[in-house]
């Protein structure tokens, strides 16, 4: 096993992407994700890759489109306002069935918002963001180790299902340092017979496109794509279950919120309150089955989020509102404290909620 090193989450994403075979990065600086771009700027020229600071986020995502169409692993990264700018390009990637990695190290919004951590782009990431019928694979790391591991996984899933994938992190995940064991160089090349690599007069030409003016054709393409989405929803949901065996209350939280929740769970358990955690690792596909399964045993759910309550809707949907779901959240760059979460737990057990 390779050595544990201390790295910022943002740097871990960049290094893991390189080790996953990504040699093309296009971005535009924005706090709190700038270290991804800075790391790429330093490393890419040394390994024959491309680092390009585009003139805007919109330009960057369209450069991603180009490289992906040529069949290569490619990524961009930004933070919330910058990700909003990229939405048109993301929809085009989805509509053209192109794999790519988009990293969103979220900050408070809406608008230009602030620079402190947030999870308020959950809706944007999981429910569309851009126009049209499409999904992104959305992965939510909760440690620097996962920032690295899920970056590799995102590239793999994106290639396997021919669609864009997103890492949905936040300012704390990007800025914090933790020990990380970096993934090995993959060296794997994925066959992409659809890519625009030149026919060399040996095959008919490939077309990468998202424009279909005949509605019957567009419908059939969308239906085809949704068959792939069905397979993803069946095969790829992933979550961590923590102390759920005997839990009466289930907290659902991802990323930094899940780590805060774990502190609260330790405190609650010390008081004899049986609380557990489901931590979605994939936000799309949402781990609905795990939540539905938990609903059979727990009395209630608490959704802990850094937003006004967005994932809470999926927690309700996943178990068809069989059990009540309460919200414990802060917004605008504030982070709920373990004490905030504990207060929600105690209100719930005390019958106040």
């Amino acid at each position, binding site marked *: 096993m390779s050595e544990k090193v*201390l790295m910022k989450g943002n740097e871990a994403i960049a290094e893991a992407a390189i080790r996953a075979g990504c040699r093309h990065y296009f971005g535009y600086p924005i706090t709190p994700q700038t270290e991804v771009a800075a790391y790429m700027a330093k490393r890419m020229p040394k390994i024959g890759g491309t680092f390009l600071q585009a003139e805007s986020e919109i330009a960057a995502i369209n450069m991603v489109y180009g490289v992906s169409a040529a069949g290569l692993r490619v990524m961009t990264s930004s933070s919330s306002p910058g990700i909003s700018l990229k939405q048109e390009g993301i929809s085009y990637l989805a509509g053209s069935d192109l794999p790519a990695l988009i990293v969103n190290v979220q900050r408070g919004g809406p608008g230009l918002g602030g620079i402190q951590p947030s999870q308020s782009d959950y809706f944007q990431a999981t429910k569309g963001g851009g126009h049209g019928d499409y999904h992104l694979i959305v992965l939510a790391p909760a440690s620097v180790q996962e920032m690295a591991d899920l970056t590799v996984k995102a590239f793999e899933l994106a290639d396997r299902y021919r669609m864009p994938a997103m890492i949905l992190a936040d300012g704390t995940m990007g800025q914090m340092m933790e020990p990380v064991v970096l993934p090995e160089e993959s060296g794997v090349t994925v066959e992409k017979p659809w890519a625009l690599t030149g026919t060399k007069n040996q095959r008919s030409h490939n077309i990468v496109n998202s424009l279909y003016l005949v509605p019957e054709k567009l419908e059939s393409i969308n239906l085809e794509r949704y068959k792939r989405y069905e397979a993803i929803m069946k095969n790829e949901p992933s979550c961590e279950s923590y102390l759920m065996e005997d839990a009466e209350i289930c907290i659902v939280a991802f990323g*930094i919120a899940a*780590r*805060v929740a*774990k*502190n609260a769970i330790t405190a609650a358990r010390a008081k004899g309150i049986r609380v557990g955690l489901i931590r979605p690792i994939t936000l799309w596909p949402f781990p609905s089955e795990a939540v539905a399964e938990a609903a059979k045993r727990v009395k209630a759910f608490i959704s802990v989020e850094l937003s006004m309550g967005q994932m809470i809707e999926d927690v309700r949907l996943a178990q068809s509102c069989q059990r009540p779901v309460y919200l414990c959240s802060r917004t605008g760059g504030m982070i709920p404290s373990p004490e905030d979460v504990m207060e929600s737990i105690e209100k719930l057990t005390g019958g106040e909620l």
Partner: protein
Amino acid sequence: MYTQILIAGFGGQGILFAGKFLAYQGLIEGRQISWLPSYGPEMRGGTANCSVIVADTPVGSPIVSKPDILAVMNLPSLDRYESEAVPGAKVFVDSTLVERRLEREDVTPYYIPATKLAKDSGMPSLANMILMGKLIRETGIVSFKDIRRGLEKVVSVRHQDLLELNLKALSMGYDYKPGTAYQLNP
């Protein structure tokens, strides 16, 4: 062991570096650790702080809001965080830059004129490490005999010449005793 450390001061005092050194030293000693900086405008001269957790169990939230160990290098930081420290906390104060004493009586204060010591010894940018030396002595959060290994990780390759100076600063803090000639701001 699950120790939450908060280091705070002005941007440019090496707050984040001091935290990074503790974190790496903890990692070398086989602990679970996390390091979380304040970021953004702070890096350009405002207030800076960093949360470090050194533990034997996995680290939950990396945000330190109730420190077991607090080190402050300016008055605004003491004003802001004194009330947040847990009862029984150890609080390290750069007494050159912080003129007041602690108001709380349920925490243990250590006053070290780190900035003055650093200046007098010709290493004005290393007050942070003098403070860390004292912190290591009084808390045992990491082992002092191994500090060179941690320093080697955090002092960049370009600046390895600064390694010895950092070691000197750490030792100065480690050996500092109130009431000695060093203490100019009793």
